[in-house]
């Protein structure tokens, strides 16, 4: 993993004779140029720059982009994708793809509903739904790592099969998410208007603690996203799991010859990927307090998650990727979506502009990356 390799030299490291003076200067006072160079030196550097540019553009061009209220609007546009993309990154670093995350996203909340309706308490229902999707990931991993089907095909099959299964068990009917019901209470609030006391009834919405934790709370998904991204980035950078993931993605045969258990590594990552997608499915179902058996919507989410991972700097050929990058990629997509809406772009044009903006952003990304390589290896 080059993140580790590229980390700034720590003072404890034995000084190399050639690099020492520059190194000492960098530690004492990093100037603007060096800060820029260091940001671009990160794999996520280019997408950070592109995302900032997008944010600045919308801040300048709309009055409401840079407001607290808009930040809350923005959250559901990126937090779910960030979580899903984190899992996808682990599969994509292997050089594989998981299309079935769209189905896990759709299936998990319906299974949760069924289990809860069958009388199971809420949290165990969630856990069992997640476990079921882990099994889905294991099946994906089995077909890819052991049977040897290409992951695109294997997970495409799983996508259709599991979305079909969701339609079967739901009879195509939307359901109310268990534990996410909104209760309303009415309070009489006294206002003082021109010295006159006026009592007016006000309604207040409540959701259960369960709902607040699992996606219903305003910042719930954001917190889930941040925690998951941080944990998974640590796993990727600082543990054997991450090391083997990069090893298998970079050179599958070589990793096997070196003694890495390639199949185990692959299956494990497919399980992780399905699990994050299932979690997002449940969070979103709780947030919306109902869930539609809509494969088309789920598939759109699948592509957004993969787009977030790719935009964040994870390459589709494997061997390299970052979870933090996926978070920023998701943030970029969210900003784009939200900003275009604020600009009053006609709903019919939205997807069109989104597509063009992705192409433009990725082009900028490529050039920034080239510049970055130029600064480093010359």
């Amino acid at each position, binding site marked *: 993993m080059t993140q580790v390799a590229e980390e700034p030299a720590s003072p404890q490291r034995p000084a190399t004779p050639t690099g020492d003076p520059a190194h000492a200067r960098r530690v004492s006072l990093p100037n603007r140029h060096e800060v820029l160079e260091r940001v671009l030196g990160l794999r996520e550097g280019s997408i950070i720059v592109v995302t900032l540019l997008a944010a600045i553009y919308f801040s300048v061009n709309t009055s409401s982009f840079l407001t607290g209220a808009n930040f809350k609007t923005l959250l559901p546009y990126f937090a779910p994708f960030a979580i899903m993309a984190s899992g996808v990154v682990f599969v994509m670093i292997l050089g594989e793809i998981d299309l079935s995350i769209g189905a896990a996203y759709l299936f998990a909340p319906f299974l949760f509903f069924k289990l809860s309706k069958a009388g199971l308490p809420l949290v165990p229902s969630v856990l069992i739904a997640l476990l079921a999707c882990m099994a889905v990931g294991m099946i994906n991993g089995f077909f890819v790592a052991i049977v040897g089907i290409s992951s695109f095909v294997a997970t495409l099959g799983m996508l259709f099969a599991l979305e079909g299964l969701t339609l079967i068990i739901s009879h195509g009917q939307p359901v109310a998410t268990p534990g996410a019901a909104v209760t309303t209470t009415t309070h009489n609030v006294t206002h003082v208007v021109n010295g006159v006391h006026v009592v007016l009834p006000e309604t207040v919405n409540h959701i259960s603690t369960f709902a607040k934790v699992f996606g219903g709370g305003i910042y719930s998904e954001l917190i889930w996203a941040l925690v998951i991204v941080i944990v998974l980035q640590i796993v990727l950078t*600082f543990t054997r799991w991450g090391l083997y993931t990069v090893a298998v993605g*970079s050179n599958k045969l070589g990793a096997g010859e070196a*003694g890495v258990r390639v199949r185990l590594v692959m299956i494990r990552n497919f399980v992780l990927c399905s699990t994050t997608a299932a979690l997002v499915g449940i969070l979103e179902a709780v947030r919306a307090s109902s869930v539609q058996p809509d494969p088309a919507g789920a598939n759109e989410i699948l592509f957004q998650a993969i787009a977030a991972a790719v935009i964040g700097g994870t390459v589709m050929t494997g061997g390299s990727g970052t979870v933090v990058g996926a978070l920023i990629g998701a943030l970029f997509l969210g900003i784009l979506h939200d900003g275009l809406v604020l600009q009053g772009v006609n709903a019919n044009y939205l997807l069109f502009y989104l597509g063009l903006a992705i192409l433009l952003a990725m082009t900028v990304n490529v050039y920034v990356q080239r510049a970055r390589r130029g600064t480093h*290896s010359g």
Partner: protein
Amino acid sequence: MADPAIPAETIVGPTSAPDDVLRVEHIAKRFGPVTALRDVNLHLRKGEVLGLLGDNGSGKSTLIKIICGFQKQDAGKMFLHGRPYEPRSVDDARAQGIDTVYQDLALIDELSVYHNLALRREKVHHPIPFLANREMKAEARRALDEIGINIPRIDVAVARLSGGQRQAIAVARTVNSDADILLLDEPLAAMGAKEGSMILDLVARLKEEGRVSILMILHNYVHVLEACDRVSMIQDGAIALDKPTAETSVEELTEIVVNEYRRARMAAHEATTQA
């Protein structure tokens, strides 16, 4: 497939010495219709450097992959220190003291030099098993210094190194292990003359220490005579010659290969004239 070339009587049968660390008997391996190994008999004595010669496609690498636990033979037995040896995996073989430098080097381009050196022997912290990168760097530095190959930066991805440097890292990874049997599949393949002689020096040093036994695939007969105690030549999936290097010469080794080539030509000629 018609059985080619070598008459059965020229195949070297199972041989052994009292101080064998590894014995390989009647090993056979097929890949679908292709017979990679027919009947291989080989032994490796303690502290010995055995050179394995053979043309491209003669089955050398397949034999190495079977011994190191990466593939399983179809028939035949192996013995490690006199006991039956049936490695279940590369890890298992390594746990039993056999480590390998593969022809394709098994390096991970995206990983740093020190992570490559430590792969599957990573050092981790306790109780939370985070990678102990600083220790692995120090270890890598030590291992590379010991070999005497100059790798200026060990925290860059191996993709950025030259062929010779990559080879050196693969060799260092194996030599640095606790193994007492080293399998080297063409350790000099991508190396310049200077780097190559460093590796041969290293092999000579290991031989002097006498701790490890080495089975090494080489292409260059001069290198074989220089570095090895004994040479086995593999032809068409069987051992056709097994001699101490002191009793053979570049001429004799060349002769065997050329003879085989002539026989094959003749067989091909006969086949076409008959048709």
